[in-house]
């Protein structure tokens, strides 16, 4: 596995306009879904984006997939700005970066056979013969633990776990270098989740893929990821290896988030850090550090005025934190 970088976000922002009026619409405000993100990910690694709903983790994933265009900044894959790609370079990107979405019930077209769902990327980007396509479909179906004969079935003939396997197969067919996994197991039943997580782990080993994982469940991220980026209101507030982050979270928000996680044993009920209020609206995020109105460890008026930048936490080699305490 090489250590070169595959994915890089440079000052990426995504603001969604809010319009008002029926006939003559005008812009009434902006949702700051992603508000200045820098990150980098090396080949073969898994980076998990965690945070509560509305923190911008899904928008970040969609930006990397070219499903959204950034308002500002650049998203680079293999050194190329993905939103500038055209022609052959765009096709190459399409086959190198694939996705698995959360809900296996809505991610498969109910009117298409599994074969056609899985082969879509090949059909769109290459002109292969029918038998070549069938061979490759059969191979990826075996890779994800399905039978090649199931290629002729329709999605409704499968259970949730099997449908997620079909979705994974369709992402794998173009031999991608990177998979964007948007909550790949959270819609599945407990006993099916570990099947899918283990499958994703095995496939990563086998094909040396890079994963960008969006998840809200901290246990899932600990199991799947090498790196963790904690997001709050469109910004990354802490970024470190999984071991370092779970051992010693630095940012007060991360601490609160971790303390709210459910225990894995009745004797380990946590001492919870109580946050006041709810997550502020991303339409009008607070000034300075966006966590300051709820922060139990506020450093002072600097928190209200200056936006903290990600910097190395003292005494660490690669644990980045955005907080005025450090």
């Amino acid at each position, binding site marked *: 596995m090489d250590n070169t970088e595959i994915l890089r976000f440079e000052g990426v922002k995504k603001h969604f306009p809010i319009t008002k009026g029926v006939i003559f619409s005008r812009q009434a405000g902006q949702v700051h879904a992603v508000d200045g993100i820098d990150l980098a990910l090396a080949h073969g690694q898994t980076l998990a984006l965690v945070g509560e709903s509305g923190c911008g983790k899904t928008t970040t994933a969609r930006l990397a997939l070219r499903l959204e265009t950034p308002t500002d900044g650049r998203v680079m894959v293999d050194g190329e700005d993905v939103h500038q790609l055209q022609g052959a370079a765009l096709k190459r990107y399409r086959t190198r970066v694939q996705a698995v979405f959360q809900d296996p019930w809505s991610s498969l077209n109910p009117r298409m056979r599994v074969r056609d769902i899985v082969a879509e990327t090949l059909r769109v980007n290459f002109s292969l013969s029918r038998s070549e396509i069938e061979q490759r479909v059969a191979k990826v179906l075996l890779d994800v633990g399905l039978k090649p004969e199931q290629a002729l079935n329709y999605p409704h003939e499968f259970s949730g776990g099997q449908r997620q396997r079909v979705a994974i197969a369709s992402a794998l067919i173009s031999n991608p270098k990177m998979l964007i996994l948007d909550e790949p197991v959270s819609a599945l*039943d407990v*006993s099916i989740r570990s099947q899918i*997580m283990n499958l994703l782990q095995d496939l990563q080993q086998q094909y040396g893929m890079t994963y960008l994982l969006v998840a809200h469940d901290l246990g899932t991220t*600990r199991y799947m990821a090498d790196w963790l980026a904690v997001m709050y209101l469109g910004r990354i507030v802490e970024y470190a290896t999984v071991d370092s982050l779970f051992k010693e979270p630095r940012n007060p928000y991360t601490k609160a988030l971790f303390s*709210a996680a459910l225990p*894995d*044993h009745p004797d380990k009920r946590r001492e*919870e850090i109580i946050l006041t209020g709810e*997550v502020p609206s991303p339409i009008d995020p607070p000034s300075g550090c966006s966590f300051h109105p709820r922060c139990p460890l506020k450093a002072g008026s600097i928190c209200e005025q200056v936006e903290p930048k990600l910097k190395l936490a003292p005494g660490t080699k690669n644990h980045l934190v955005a907080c005025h305490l450090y």
Partner: protein
Amino acid sequence: MAKIIGETILQVENLQTELHTNIGVQRPVDGVSLSLRQGETLGIVGESGCGKSMTALSILGVVPKPAAQVVGGRVMFNGQDLRTFSEQQMRRIRGGSISMVLQDPQTSLNPVYTIGGQVTEAIALHRDVPRRSLMSHAIDALRQVRVAAPEQRVKDYPHQMSGGMKQRVSGAIAISCDPHVLIADEPTTALDVTIQSQYLRLLREIQEKTGLSIIFITHDFGIIANMCDTVAVMYAGRVVESGPVRAIFDEPRHPYTRALLNSVPTMDRHVKRLYSIPGQPPALWDRPAGCWYRNRCPFAEPRCETQYPPAIAAKNTAGSNHVANCWKLEDSTWITPKS
């Protein structure tokens, strides 16, 4: 924990619910027995389709009729069998002595009425409160679930509130009539972690203050560990293991319980490889002969194929409170191996 657990308040015995479908009669709840003491939290845990929600609906007699029908068993509440109650008597029980919070805060509140209107309606139905003081009771109920500035919020409509806030309002409605038993059906599934933990803490506080008994239905062992005193693990319409929460976590006896516990990743330590249960739960119309878990069980023996195992006591410190439906328990040294 500062919690006093009293006498048994609700005893469910061999509850059976049938579902009439166009492919035949099925039993989503097939002989469920549960026991709940005053001030206690009982967790019913299982995967989707295991019958946990249908069990709750059957206890309250609100299964979706006419397709579904409770066909057998007893629901003893304060010494009386609720199954013998008339519809009118049951209406007084529901939302009064036994109330329920549902999973989705978006749909459990009526969008066209104010918060205050919905809470006062619940109070007016079940409590003998003069009309003039209804609103102040509603404000008290909202204050109890920590809705900030309840005097103003009673005029709000559901769409003006966040998901967590709406779920608290549902909670306020559920506890507004001082119920003895609260059935909570995955009330935090739609909520974010921090909001979920606030909500769970709130329920615990109310329980400590009022001695409320709670049945918590969930698929999440984290919630069980956080909230519950006793646990019933359900699989394919039956309870397969039940006992005190620590016994279930420390010495699970049923292979399914152990497998579930081992298949959930935790943030507290790094796990190299999660256990994964092969296959999926049997469909209602396709339960195998013998033990219903045997197809997925690594310890299945020939007798598992013919006879459904009875509830056998785990011979441990929990004594007769900890039982599991597995033939392996006949061997007194049986401990489910860590897989």
